[in-house]
Structures are given as structure tokens and as C-alpha cells.
């Protein structure tokens, strides 16, 4: 096991270590820059550097820290063509991993971006190689967001046409906008954790060494040891210049300082065909032995309303019991019952801290359910002690997910209205982590012994008979498995690219034009 070593959190961009949504920033705006003149673009970056939010801990009532939580956050990342436009030395450029050099469009065969997801149908902003940088603002409210956007826009206008905002994001009424807004979905006036299909999302992000997280968040988020405990994942799975799970430094460009404390980020605008999804579920639920909610939970691996995992409540009856317990404990805890509060906390811990050890057949959580595909936990060790640790096959495939839902402001959301998820994920290797999961676990099922089946939500289905998913039944129960056939495409890619998120040190070097690989 690797050992904890403190990270230089002041040098690491904040979005790597913090999911801002969890810290009270439900609003976000993403916009994309094009560089027209390297020197002027560098000058612009110099002005931007002081605005960049780092990963330093923020003061909290339970742990004092020198940094107060800001009202807004700012982060930046670059595409390969962006780094070329900034005239990084050729030797440094050639040191970047091939998939990053190629960019997301060119990887469409691996990612399954075909048919309606083909890059030719993406939002205009993604046509051509003009997207050079991604800038994100996360804010506690709309007003702060708008103010900060104007501030950065001002810096851009002062760049003497060295930098421009690349327009062309399809907006709610089909109009083209210069930015992509994203927001938590509000319920009763409060930002919630739901996405537009109605599922509670963003629950199980990974926990890695030195990330500054609260240790109580470790169980279920780190990696599984042979004895069933959870320890943090190696830093190098998520941040360059640090040792990864293979005890190696992840491939990175030279000089070392360019890569150290930086990482890669995948940005994908994923449109959700809400009407198609609702119709499909309504129709299929008629034949399903259980509620519509259970059917939806079987697709996801979690109950839509509160995110409880199926392994904890595998059917309608146990879910009703769980909800009752949850409601009772919440009431008691709200009335000041410390014991109930403790029990509630322990119960909620089970939302994350679980394995599929008691559900090898998938009778509780289907083997092909979304959360079981994308984070297999220890379930791929099908033969006892086949690997060094139970999670050996997943520890190098973890995705640090960022991002928020977008659109869906209309009363009537259907396939044509604009809504979905701005999916962002962070990792030291886009190829090994995101692309592998997308290709092998989302769009293929050999590892799960499910043939060609795909993820119900994300799979590039086409509504054919064999576009199917299986809901397993308990062996020996006499019940038949349930086959969901003719799966249509619920999610379509509408654009995206791969970004390098440099450290503050590297960003300053890029801004000064002094990156020197020699």
C-alpha cells in the first residue's frame, strides 16, 4: 500500500479535489475559448491566473482553515489544439498521451458516438478544432455567476482579439449561446441531486490519498482490500506526477513541472431523451413483476427517489421498510435525538459502503445495472482470491465525476427540449479510465458475461429486438429473469472534448511562455 503524502493543494486546481455541487455551488457556466494570437493569449492567461480556484481546504464550522469559501470558483483546462495555439514546445506537446492529442471527435469509434451521437450532429461549438480552452465558473447563485462571467469577458475583450469566446451551444429554445449553463435540478425551490430522468445522481465519487477529504467519506469510495476494508486510492490515479495504483508515475509530458499536479478531464454534453425514457418505462412496467420505480431502480442499481442502492433494498417491500425507517429516524433526529441521528448517519453510510458479495447472481442489483457497470467494486473477482485485491480490476478504472445537469427549464420536457447532463470526469489517463469504462463496460459486456448488452442509459442502442438488458432473478426461486428488449437510445452525445487541467505552476509557465522541455 502506498502511503499518504500531503498534496500541495494550493498548486492543484480546485475542481480536481472538490465536487463544487456538494460544497453549495449549484450553478455553473462553462465556456470555451479560442486563441488567435499566442502572446496576447498568454497575457490573458496571466490576468486569469489569480482568479483560478485551488484545491485548498475551505474554513468550515468543524475545521478552521485560513481560506474562506469563495462565492464563485474559476477553473481552466486546455485542449491539445489549445496548447498548440499557445505554442508549447513541440517536444512537450508530443509527450501528451495519444488520445488527448487526438481529441474526443477522433475517438468516436471507441466511445460509441455513432448515429445521432456522431460528431457531425454535435453543437456548432464543437465543429472544427477551434475549442482551445474550457473555463468553468461555479457559483452559489445566478447573480454571482453572471457578475463573474462579465469580469472574465472583460479580460477577454482586453486581449486585443488574442482570445475570443467560441460560441455555438444549443440553448433551451434552439438558439445558439456563447456558453453552456448548467444547474442542479431544483425541487421545491432547493437544489437537489436529481438529473432529468429523475434519478438521484453523483453519489459514489472516488476517494484518493491526499485529496483533503473527510476520512468518514472513505468507506465505499476508496479501494477494497483483501480483508474487506476500504483504503484511499493512489493519488496518481487522479493527479499527474504522483504514484498510481501500479506504483508507477502516469504517462505525462515533459518537463515534469508541466505535468506535476495537473490532470486530464473529459467534457461531454449528454442529451437526455426524457420522453422516450418515460414512454419506454411506462410501457415496460406493464409486464414487469414489480413497481415502475423498481424497474427504474433495476436499470440504475439505485432507487431513483433517494438513491438507496438495490443491494440494500432489492424489492418494493424492502424499499417501503427502508423508507419507513428513514422517515422515523429523520423525525427523531430532527427532534434532537442524538442516538437516532447516529443511526441515521450509519444508515446513510450504506448508500456508499457496500459490495455485491451477497448478490453474485444479480438478483438484487442486476449485473448490468448502471452503477454495477461503471463502478464494479469487488464484483469482477468471480473466483475466490483470483487477484491481489478484490477490486484489482476496478481500481485503475475509477472516474472522478464532476459536472451538473443542464436545461430542462420547460414545464414539458420531451426529447426535443434541451436537457441532459454536462458529464465531466477527471483522471490521470483518459484512455485507461474513461475510454475503457465507456467502451468495455458501458457499450459492451464481456466482463460481466452478458454478451453484447449495453448500459441501459448510456448504451448506443437502436431500438432493435436484441438491444436488451436482463434483470436477473434469484436462482432457485422459480422466477424467470426479465428481458428488456428494443431499448432505444436514451442518451445522445451533443459534443465534448478532452482537456488538460494544469497545476497553478504549469498554468503560470504556460502564461509566461517559458515551458522548456530541454
Amino acid at each position, binding site marked *: 500500500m502506498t502511503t499518504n503524502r500531503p498534496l500541495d493543494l494550493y498548486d492543484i486546481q480546485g475542481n480536481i479535489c472538490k465536487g463544487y455541487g456538494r460544497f453549495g455551488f449549484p450553478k455553473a457556466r462553462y465556456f470555451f475559448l479560442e486563441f488567435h494570437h499566442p502572446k496576447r493569449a498568454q497575457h490573458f492567461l496571466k490576468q486569469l491566473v489569480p482568479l483560478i480556484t485551488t484545491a485548498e481546504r475551505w474554513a468550515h464550522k468543524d475545521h478552521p482553515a485560513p481560506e474562506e469559501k469563495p462565492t464563485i470558483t474559476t477553473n481552466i483546462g486546455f485542449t491539445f489544439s489549445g496548447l498548440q495555439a499557445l505554442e508549447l514546445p513541440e517536444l512537450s506537446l508530443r509527450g501528451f498521451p495519444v488520445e488527448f492529442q487526438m481529441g474526443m471527435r477522433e475517438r468516436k469509434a471507441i466511445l460509441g458516438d455513432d448515429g445521432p451521437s456522431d460528431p457531425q450532429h454535435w453543437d456548432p461549438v464543437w465543429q472544427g478544432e477551434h475549442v482551445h480552452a474550457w473555463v468553468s465558473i461555479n457559483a452559489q447563485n445566478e447573480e454571482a455567476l453572471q457578475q463573474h462571467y462579465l469580469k472574465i469577458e472583460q479580460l477577454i475583450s482586453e486581449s486585443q482579439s488574442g482570445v475570443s469566446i467560441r460560441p455555438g451551444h444549443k440553448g433551451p429554445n434552439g438558439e445558439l449561446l456563447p456558453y453552456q449553463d448548467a444547474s442542479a435540478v431544483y425541487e421545491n425551490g432547493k437544489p437537489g441531486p436529481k438529473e432529468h430522468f429523475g434519478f438521484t445522481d453523483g453519489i459514489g465519487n472516488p476517494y484518493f490519498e491526499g485529496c483533503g477529504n473527510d476520512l468518514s467519506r472513505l468507506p465505499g469510495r476508496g479501494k477494497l482490500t483483501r480483508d474487506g476494508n476500504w483504503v484511499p486510492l493512489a493519488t496518481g490515479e487522479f493527479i499527474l506526477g504522483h504514484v498510481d495504483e501500479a506504483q508507477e508515475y502516469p504517462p505525462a509530458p515533459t518537463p515534469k513541472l508541466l505535468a506535476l499536479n495537473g490532470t486530464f478531464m473529459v467534457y461531454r454534453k449528454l442529451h437526455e431523451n426524457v420522453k422516450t425514457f418515460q414512454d419506454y418505462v411506462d410501457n415496460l412496467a406493464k*409486464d414487469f413483476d414489480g413497481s415502475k420505480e423498481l424497474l427504474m431502480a433495476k436499470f440504475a442499481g439505485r432507487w431513483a427517489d433517494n438513491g438507496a442502492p438495490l443491494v440494500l433494498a432489492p424489492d418494493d417491500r424492502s424499499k417501503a421498510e427502508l423508507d419507513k425507517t428513514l422517515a422515523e429516524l429523520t423525525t427523531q433526529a430532527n427532534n434532537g435525538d442524538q442516538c437516532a441521528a447516529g443511526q441515521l448517519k450509519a444508515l446513510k453510510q450504506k448508500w456508499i459502503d457496500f459490495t455485491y458479495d451477497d448478490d453474485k447472481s444479480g438478483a438484487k442489483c442486476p449485473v448490468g445495472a448502471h452503477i454495477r457497470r461503471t463502478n464494479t467494486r469487488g464484483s469482477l473477482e468471480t473466483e475466490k482470491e483470483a487477484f491481489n485485491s478484490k477490486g484489482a480490476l476496478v481500481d485503475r478504472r475509477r472516474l472522478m465525476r464532476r459536472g451538473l445537469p443542464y436545461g430542462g427549464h420547460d414545464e414539458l420536457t420531451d426529447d426535443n427540449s434541451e436537457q441532459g447532463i454536462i458529464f465531466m470526469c477527471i483522471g490521470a489517463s483518459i484512455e485507461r479510465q474513461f475510454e475503457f469504462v465507456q467502451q468495455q463496460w458501458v457499450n459492451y459486456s464481456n466482463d460481466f458475461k452478458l454478451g*453484447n448488452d449495453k448500459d441501459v442509459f448510456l448504451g448506443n442502442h437502436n431500438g432493435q*429486438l*436484441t438491444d*436488451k438488458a436482463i434483470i436477473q432473478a434469484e436462482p432457485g426461486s422459480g422466477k*424467470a429473469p*426479465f*428481458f428488456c*428488449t428494443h431499448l432505444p437510445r436514451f442518451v445522445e452525445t451533443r459534443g465534448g472534448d478532452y482537456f488538460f487541467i494544469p497545476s497553478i505552476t504549469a498554468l503560470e509557465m504556460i502564461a509566461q511562455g517559458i515551458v522548456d522541455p530541454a
Partner: protein
Amino acid sequence: MANTFGDSYGLTCLCPIQNGQCEANDDNSFDLASYDKITRRRLQTLPQNEQSPFAKIPNTYFARLFILNDVFFEQGNDVKRDHLKSKYLVFTSNFHGELETYLEGMWHNAESEIRNIWQYAVGFERVNNAASFIDYIKKCQLKTTLFFNGSNDKSLKQQLKSLYVKQAFSEFVLLNQGKNAATLKAEFKAFLEQIQLNNLDSPSWRPGQTRLTEASYSIPTTTPENS
């Protein structure tokens, strides 16, 4: 011994290619090209999957043709290195059954392709029938060591039929989910009639087929009970 694994055979042969060159008029380009280059071009333009010549040759599980340019040693600087005196056409095939039967079937089903591929192999000019082809291949054969058979021992027809039945059965399951026992029984009877379990020729997957290309099974519009 090592050439076989159950009823499967692992054939590896290295056929030296003549040194020299001639006018390559294969593709209407009359440039001078060495014999190995002409041979490589022919290999690279062979049709694949169902159109592959190997799809016509009975019982081929898996076959491969390539040109071996030379051998490489990754050792220190002061080691004596061997080099090949010519380039080799390498032919490997995993198939069901006996070697001679297989090669005979190969000659009878793909003679023109064989003549085209091996045209510039040393000594191939003396091959003019199945018997001389068998002799030729045997002379070029290497003993297969560490033969891993990625297929089972069944004949190709049996394997293709199994793949067909597997696909058709999963479609049967998907199409008949939730039906009552009587209907299901009738449908299954119709299914068995349609797939003809004991007829290895048809319906079945085609030799060379590598993926699901079409629905294998459909519910008859009227089941026998209803008609």
C-alpha cells in the same frame, strides 16, 4: 503430437519466396516489384469474413497468411546474428480433422486462390494437383509447439449451427417472454421446426461470419395450433 489438440489441428508452414522481381501486372500497374512485394499485395487485398477464400475451405476455424521478412534478436551487441536467406510466406491454420483431408479440401475449393498466393514460392511451380499440394505444404511444415486451440473440437458445421441456435434461441426468449405455458409450448415447437436442430447445413451461420447480421428467428404469423 503437438500439432493436434483433440480433433483440432494446428498447422504452421513457412514457404520461402523466390528472390528477384518481375513486372507486377496484378492491378494494372506494370511496375517492377519483388516477388515478396507482389505476394504481400495479394495477401493484403484478399477478401475477408464470408468472402474470404478460407470460408470456402471446409472446417477452417481460423487461418492466417503473412510475410516473414526476417528474424530479429534482441540481444547484446556482440552476438552473432542469423538472418533469413529469403522472405517467407507464412501460413497458419487451425482446423478440424486430419491434415491431408483438410489440404485436399483446400485445393479442391480454392485452387485458383492458392495458385495466386503461392505463385512465387520456391518450388511451387511443381505443384499441379491436390497430392502435390499436400506434399508441398508438408515439406514446409513446422512442428507446432504450445498449440492453444481457441475453438472446441467440433466440426465447423456443428459450431456454426451452435452459434446460430444460440442466437435464435435468445431471440426466441426475447420474443416470447411472459407468454402462458400452452402458447409457449406451441411457440417452442414452431421454433424447433424453424431452426431444424439436426440439419447442420441450414439454417445456420455462414462460414466466415463473425457477427450477428440479421434476425435468426421470427415468430411464425400463425402457429401450428392456430392454423
